[in-house]
């Protein structure tokens, strides 16, 4: 077994039982790595249930700053008997298995190629703590302490985090500190600390933050001035509205009256949630909702109305595996087609694709400006991975001089001055008409909003030419929008490179690393990250420049590739796919394997077994 020393480069996975308080202990570990200035990527891998079943938390530590998942587990903290057999199998050769040695290890789980570190976690807790609930909770802190010693981590950082975490329940601090020490002491006395895998403090995180996408979306909506939020619970989007509510309670209560400068309604279903958004936006408030794939389906009819009747709406779609319920707690990018073309008739919607929580904040805020500017639905496409996991990212920024773009709204004064008002009249030649907010003027500017065909003055008509003229104007508006969309990020564009990768959202983390790995093999690729649909013209010219472009996506049917072909009229031969759809965030190794083999194969590795083990 190799004993080369590896610093700040490992994957550690915690296998726990759902509902035993392990989440906060595991978080503590990731946060400590971050505070030591080392780039870290934590991921929750959790089943769709409330309590009792296996749950995992995986932390990647990367000196080089790679923030995607990496295949292969170096250290497994296996404290769940139910998943133990699979957990043992999933450690890479030469890796470490940390287990609770209160009970002796069944010989059938001994692998010759692993290092075993037994810590009598439960026994230590029973000896030092009185109440049984504490035994369970403190066990988690004991293994965190052991890890601190085994990996040579800064104990003060852990102590500080414990003090912060329990600032409001000070009574709990001494016990947690004691449990931490128990783990440290036991590891030091019984094993050669540190292991060859170890951590050293660095200054690689700058002023970055460790934040979650859903939370950032909720905060972005507050900064954007959203006042109406309506939603229906669905994993993994629920925490978007929870975050909005939390921030509103902190930041939006009128100090004099105690009244709320916001309204949040838990709707009776997603249909109603979207209806409320349209009603509120039509009436001049900034309104939004958040959902996942099944909710998007229910919202479809209203999305079509938003497009055709030109009513602003903001929707945060936190994608999960589909179709139907799929694996509701696993990630995918599989609502691309459903969202882009949601609804009946000729309809298409503006999509935004953040990759980081920072962008979740920015693009959610931007979505409100775009929705009002283009008087249509804007769908912010994130996924479970981005929404429900912490990500190392730039701090949130806000330009204090920024004004909200309320779009083309005609005021009472403008109406009074005799400006022509035709609700669907293209006065400026950009396809975007003017609207008025109900209640504006006693005799001018009222109009009737409807999904039936109408003329430029919002009068009902079934004249085919008038209908077609309107549909063409909507298309013109779409082309105007394309010019104002966030530009794609051109990560690398060297003339000599004939191949490129193109990706969006959370695939970016692994894609960036994959291009570095391919570089090492002498296969240099240009790279572009998409941020919006409609596609700005840079997207087409980028693809045109290359003989071959690999589109990296986390869905089965290459949905973004279809949209690219369809919208940009690109020959299918030019676009290759790298597809992963097993519900786990894509890895760099996997991308490299796909590109090398020229195949988009169905992944057959460990995570699928993990998922299956839940049902056995």
């Amino acid at each position, binding site marked *: 077994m190799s004993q080369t020393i590896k610093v700040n480069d490992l994957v550690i996975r915690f296998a726990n039982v759902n509902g035993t308080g392990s989440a906060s202990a595991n978080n503590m570990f990731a946060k400590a790595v971050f505070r030591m200035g080392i780039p870290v990527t934590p991921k929750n891998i959790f089943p769709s249930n409330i309590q009792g079943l296996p749950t995992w938390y995986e932390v990647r530590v990367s000196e080089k700053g790679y923030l995607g998942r990496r295949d292969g587990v170096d250290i497994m903290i296996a404290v769940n008997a139910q998943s133990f057999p699979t957990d043992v199998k999933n450690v890479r050769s030469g890796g470490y298995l940390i287990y609770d040695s209160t009970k002796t290890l069944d010989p059938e789980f001994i692998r010759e190629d692993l290092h075993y570190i037994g810590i009598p976690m439960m026994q230590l807790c029973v000896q030092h703590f009185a109440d049984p609930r504490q035994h369970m909770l403190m066990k988690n802190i004991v293994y965190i302490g052991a890890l601190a010693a085994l990996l040579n981590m800064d104990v003060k950082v852990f102590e500080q985090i414990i003090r912060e975490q329990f600032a409001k329940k000070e009574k709990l601090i001494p016990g947690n500190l004691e449990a931490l020490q128990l783990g440290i002491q036991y590891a030091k006395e019984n094993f050669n600390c540190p292991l060859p895998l170890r951590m050293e403090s660095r200054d690689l995180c700058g002023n970055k933050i460790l934040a979650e996408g859903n939370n950032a979306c909720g905060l972005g909506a507050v900064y954007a001035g959203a006042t109406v939020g309506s939603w229906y619970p669905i994993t993994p989007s629920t925490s978007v509205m929870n975050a909005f509510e939390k921030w509103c309670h902190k930041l939006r209560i009128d100090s004099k009256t105690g*009244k709320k400068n916001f309204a949040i309604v838990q709707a009776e279903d997603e249909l*109603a949630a979207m209806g409320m958004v349209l*009603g509120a936006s039509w009436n001049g408030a900034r309104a939004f909702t958040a959902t996942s794939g099944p909710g998007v389906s229910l919202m479809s009819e209203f999305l079509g109305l938003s497009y055709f009747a030109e009513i602003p709406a903001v929707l945060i779609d936190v994608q999960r595996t589909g179709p139907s319920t799929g694996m509701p707690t696993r990630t995918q990018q599989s609502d691309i087609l459903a969202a882009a073309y949601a609804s009946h008739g000729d309809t298409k919607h503006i999509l935004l694709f953040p990759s980081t929580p920072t962008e979740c904040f920015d693009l959610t805020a931007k979505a409100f400006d775009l929705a009002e500017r283009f008087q249509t639905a804007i769908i912010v496409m994130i996924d479970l991975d981005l929404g429900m996991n912490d990500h190392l990212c730039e701090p*949130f920024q806000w330009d204090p001089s920024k004004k909200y773009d309320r779009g083309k709204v005609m005021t009472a004064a403008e109406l009074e001055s005799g400006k022509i008002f035709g609700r669907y009249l293209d006065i400026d030649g950009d396809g975007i008409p003017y609207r008025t907010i109900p209640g504006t003027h*006693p005799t001018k500017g009222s109009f009737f909003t409807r999904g039936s065909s109408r003329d430029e003055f919002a009068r009902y008509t079934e004249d085919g030419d008038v209908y077609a003229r309107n549909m063409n104007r909507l298309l013109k508006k779409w082309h105007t929008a394309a010019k104002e969309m966030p530009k794609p990020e051109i990560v690398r564009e060297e003339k000599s490179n004939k191949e490129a990768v193109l990706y969006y959202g959370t695939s970016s983390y692994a894609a960036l690393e994959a291009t570095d790995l391919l570089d090492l093999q002498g296969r240099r690729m240009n790279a572009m990250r998409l941020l919006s649909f409609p596609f700005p013209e840079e997207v087409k010219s980028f693809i045109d420049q290359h003989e071959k472009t690999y589109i990296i996506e986390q869905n089965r049917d290459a949905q973004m590739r279809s949209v690219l072909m369809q919208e940009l009229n690109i020959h299918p031969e030019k676009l290759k796919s790298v597809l992963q759809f097993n519900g786990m965030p894509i890895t760099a190794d996997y991308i490299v394997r796909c590109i090398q083999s020229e195949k988009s194969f169905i992944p057959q590795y460990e995570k699928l077994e993990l998922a299956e083990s839940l049902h056995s």
Partner: protein
Amino acid sequence: MTYAKPNFRHPALAKNEIGFSKRDYEGALSTLCAGCGHDSISAAIVQACFEMSIQPHRLAKLSGIGCSSKTPTYFLGNSHGFNSVHGRMPSVATGAILANKDLIYLGVSGDGDTASIGMGQFVHAIRRNLNMVYIVMNNGCYGLTKGQDSATADEGSVNKSGAENPFQGIDLCGLGIELGAKFVARSFSGDKSQLIPLIKAALKHPGFALIDVISPCVTFNNNAGSTKSYDYTREHIEATAAIDLVPYKSEITIDQLEGSTELIQMHDESYIRLNKLHPDWDPMDKFSALRNLHLAHSKNEILTGLIYLDTDSKDLHEILNTSDTALNALSAEELCPGLDVLDKINESYR
């Protein structure tokens, strides 16, 4: 085709307090079948709003889909209107009301729109006590899709093709009371003298006000055997409490009250005068209201008038405790927490 009325206004037309004539409350020419009950309801809405001197731009009209839901085009041409999607007017109204609590909201729906596809949203609009008037133009059938039975069609009622409806009908008034609506009325499109005061009182009510109006579909459901036909309705009508709105400014002398009349104060201090026609009717008594609805049903009678009223009503904004300023009128300064706060938030993520 577009239908618009000429803008000509006769100078001699009577004006209301704010200087508008009745024409100012009308809309485009109706394209509904001649004789459709829905047009009479539109006319009653026009009359009620004219008499109440409602500023047309302060009223927003919303509807779902159906012949009935088309009617907002035919009244209050100076009001903003929203003809949404089938059955989902209540959610759109909820959003609109959340955004601006200061407008008057008038929702129009059909019995198909409300009692079938939109039943869920209807129920929740009541539950949330939206401050709106919700008029169901109830013809017991689907007009726009050519006469299928709706969920309010009575059991045994015969539709145009001669088929008998095998299912029980839903009584929207009973349901409304059961769900906690505080203003529940039923009327008949052909009875202007009852319908207009009801609409006026509903507009004054500070919460969800339901008016279920029997509105015969002349084309598909005005045949013998239909319990929503003109003839059947006229023959089986039984009035409950008839009402009148007493405007705020008029002098109120309690002495004038006769035995069967009662004055009820609305939230803006205007009064409605209630004439109890039905001998044992107390619209403030929920249990007797429900009992009488059931009783009438068992006798194949249609009760009309104000069936139930509770003026003590907390609307959605009060329930949510939202700001006194309409949410759509809050400024960016009031809404955006600014950079300093953001820096502190960033700090909490380190």
